[in-house]
């Protein structure tokens, strides 16, 4: 008999909790309408920075290309004799492969490859996930 009362009491207490939450404001974030605050450290899509002269800061050392665990970065490098430094003639990141591990950003000696806080990059074709230099260099 006491068992029945104990059980009933446990059941009622459990129901009390759900009822309590019934009257509490939901925690859902209504996504397209409101967005959650994203940490500045968020590892989103990649971005190359320009240096103070307005030209690309990357000198094509290929470290990011080598360190990438999934080989999603590829680049072509040429040497500008006049400026006595290297430039990339193409810099492509395949975001279909990228796993956003952040190793490339960490390894960049010039600190010119950074993450953006952009996380909405869905497309209709796989091809448009491959971003070329004009989209990465901003």
């Amino acid at each position: 008999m006491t068992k029945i009362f104990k059980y009933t009491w446990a059941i009622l207490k459990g129901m009390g909790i759900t009822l309590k939450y019934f009257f509490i404001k939901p925690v859902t974030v209504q996504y397209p309408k409101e967005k959650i605050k994203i940490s500045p450290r968020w590892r989103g899509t990649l971005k190359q920075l320009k240096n103070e002269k307005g030209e690309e800061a990357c000198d094509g050392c290929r470290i990011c290309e080598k360190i990438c665990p999934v080989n999603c970065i590829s680049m072509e490098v040429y040497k500008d004799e006049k400026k006595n430094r290297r430039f990339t003639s193409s810099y492509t990141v395949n975001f279909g492969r990228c796993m956003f591990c952040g190793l490339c950003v960490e390894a960049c000696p010039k600190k010119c490859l950074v993450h953006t806080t952009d996380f909405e990059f869905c497309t209709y074709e796989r091809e448009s996930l491959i971003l070329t230099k004009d989209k990465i260099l901003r």
Partner: protein
Amino acid sequence: MIYASQSLGDLWVWLLERLAEFCGWLGIPEVIRYSVEKGAYAIGLLVFISLTALVLIYMERKVSAHMQLRYGPMWTGGWHGWSQTIADMIKLLLKEDVIPDKADRWVHRVAPIVVFVPSLLGFLVIPFDKHLIGADLNVGILIIFGFSSIAVLSIFMGGWASNNKYTLLGGLRSAAQMISYELPLVLSVLGVIMTVGSLKMSDIVMAQKDVWFLFTPNFLGFIIYIIAGTAEVNRTPFDIPEAESELVSGYNTEYSGLKYGFFMLSEFTNTFIISAIAATFFMGGWNGPSWLPGIVSFLGKTYLIVFLLMWFRWTFPRFRVDRLMDFGWKFLLPLSFFNILMIAVWVLVKK
């Protein structure tokens, strides 16, 4: 004249009187008048049932959502996603109707109809208001239980015909469960019938004019009724025929489109019927404060019970099939016998 204070039942009676006058004036035979009268009621009932199902589905979504810290549907139709269920209904109508390759086609097709029609017929004897009852039969409650036991058959048909092991298990479980919980369900209502001395729905409601049976020794019967009723409509914690995490979706795994819609519709109409009977038998039906129209009072009570069932559903885990049988036969059935005994003594003492 109709006054605002008068209820829908009075309006219905007034309309019937006008109809009778009209027929008498034109000399239309009684048969036609009768069929027009009942046909109008049936159409009204159908509209009511489909609206109820929509409201119940929407309510289920919102109640579950808010208990789970969600909002539920918020976008469709503007205000709090009110038209989400309508959109879903349209989607179900337009969906392809898949029949599995090796299914028993005929039974597979018939099962959703067999499940829906009894739940529809059950509405006939539910007293919505003073005179608002399809047929005030003197075996009223027996009709409902009789029809609701047909639902077992249809669920088993659906489970068997789909030719899928999960649906088969779901159908078998459902048959076992619904048959064993029918007993406590009927026995718990028996207490009320003994108190009133009639099976007629209107008599039962009238008997509760002063005090609801909920506040008499019939309280125990109410609890048994709610538990057994939850099992009867296959809702958590007794939803083992559907048991999503075990049997995928139980007996309706292989159903899609409109047929699935029928199963879902019947689930919600059955929930409504069970709640409506609870409101009628234990909470005074359309009795209520004089300023409140009877139908509002009745629907309010019914929806309270519906909310209770939803509250159960979103709080509790699911029983295991053998424990469910144990609970039904070894606990609920003796308890309902005890309830009958108690009511019998009470009725005698009162006399």
